[in-house]
């Protein structure tokens, strides 16, 4: 029996859980029947191309957007237009609409701080130093990367139990990105936090990820612990005869195939031994088996032919 690619995680303490979360705009479904399960303390990478529904999902988790159907729960609280859910979250939006460009950065941070009884002022100052923020510059005059760092500070300094980061390294130069990664590592070591990062740039945040959700056209294609993904998804290089046409499609979840007629490179989901045995008995010589890095894995999952 081939094992299907999992889209559900085993039951455990969850920081974020959605049930059938759906958002429809007119006749277009931006997000369809999403069942996100993010364990407490996870660093969850929500991968998907632009327009896959990542931002819509985040806005629903924040209670900023009403789902058409389904429900969401964050840190034990049902999302709603009420403030309780947002008080437990730090949020870096993809596009910041409407913060106050005329405000000096220092004033904006102080204004923001007023909304969070848990705000840690000493920590905020340390972050401002690390990010090299200049409090006197107007927020609207900051470069994209500088504004991003201000937003990260505003999301981190009240040490929320859940962080939602939408394309957090967008607009950052390599040095700033490195700083952000160092700060994030330190934050995770210091404060217990569940992080969900939505990004189409896998490599920027994959160093932290221990859970992966892949979103394609508003649906979860996969949702799995990274270690499982790494163990189950493999690339098999096969030596075969040119006219080798095995009937394996029904048996093995084949995600991608390329290579040449005599050397096929197949990306297959399944336990390595089992897959190798099936391939061998179908007449192929398995020359090598290799694991995929996260970028390749995401690509393989997204390019999977619709066969469900």
């Amino acid at each position: 029996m081939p094992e299907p690619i999992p889209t559900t995680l085993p039951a455990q303490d969850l920081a974020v859980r959605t049930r059938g979360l759906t958002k429809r705009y007119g006749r277009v479904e931006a997000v369809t029947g999403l069942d996100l399960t993010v364990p407490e303390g996870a660093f969850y990478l929500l991968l998907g191309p632009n327009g896959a529904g990542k931002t819509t999902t985040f806005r629903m988790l924040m209670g900023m957007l009403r789902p058409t159907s389904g429900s969401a729960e964050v840190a034990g609280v049902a999302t709603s237009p009420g403030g309780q859910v947002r008080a437990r979250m730090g949020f870096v939006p993809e596009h910041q609409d409407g913060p106050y460009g005329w405000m000096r950065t220092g004033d904006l941070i102080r204004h923001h701080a007023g909304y969070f009884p848990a705000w840690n002022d000493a920590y905020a100052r340390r972050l401002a130093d690390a990010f090299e923020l200049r409090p006197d510059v107007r927020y609207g005059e900051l470069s994209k990367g500088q504004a991003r760092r201000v937003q990260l500070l505003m999301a981190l300094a009240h040490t929320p139990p859940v962080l939602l980061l939408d394309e957090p390294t967008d607009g950052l130069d390599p040095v700033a990105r490195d700083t952000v990664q160092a700060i994030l590592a330190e934050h995770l070591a210091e404060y217990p936090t569940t992080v969900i990062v939505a990004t189409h740039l896998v490599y920027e945040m994959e160093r932290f990820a221990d859970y992966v959700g892949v979103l394609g056209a508003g649906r979860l294609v996969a949702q799995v612990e990274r270690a499982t993904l790494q163990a189950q998804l493999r690339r098999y290089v096969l030596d075969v005869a040119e006219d080798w046409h095995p009937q394996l499609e029904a048996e093995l979840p084949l995600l991608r195939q390329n290579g040449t007629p005599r050397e096929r490179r197949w990306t297959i989901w399944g336990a390595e031994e089992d897959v190798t045995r099936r391939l061998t008995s179908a007449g192929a010589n398995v020359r090598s088996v290799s694991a995929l890095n996260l970028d390749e894995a995401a690509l393989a999952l997204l390019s999977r032919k619709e066969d469900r």
Partner: protein
Amino acid sequence: MPFDIDHSDSRPIYVQIMDEIRRGIVVGAWRPEEPLPSVRQLAVELRVNPRTVQQAYGELERDGLLYVRRGQGTFVASRANGADRQALLQEVARRLLNEAYRHGFDVDELTGALQREAKQPDNTQEA
């Protein structure tokens, strides 16, 4: 930074950390009874999830390569590491062999080529 993480490497990050620490101990970069960086320090230096570092330390501790002194941190164990040296060599061999198979060579061809390569005048490192 004690070492680098290669994100295009398909080994999981905690395995890479374990391998590097093992290697460091075998080549003497870390001596017995020397302290390792704290989980937090190493996570920040490598820009990785502290939980990943924790996992690597935990597994190395279980293997007996590291031990924790309560309140002081993680230290390199003082046991003889001849066995670890052997294990590391075995791992290197395994990878070489895999790579050779992938390119269609068998083990004899590989060993022959290794010996020829080592005799090249440019490669005068210790045998």
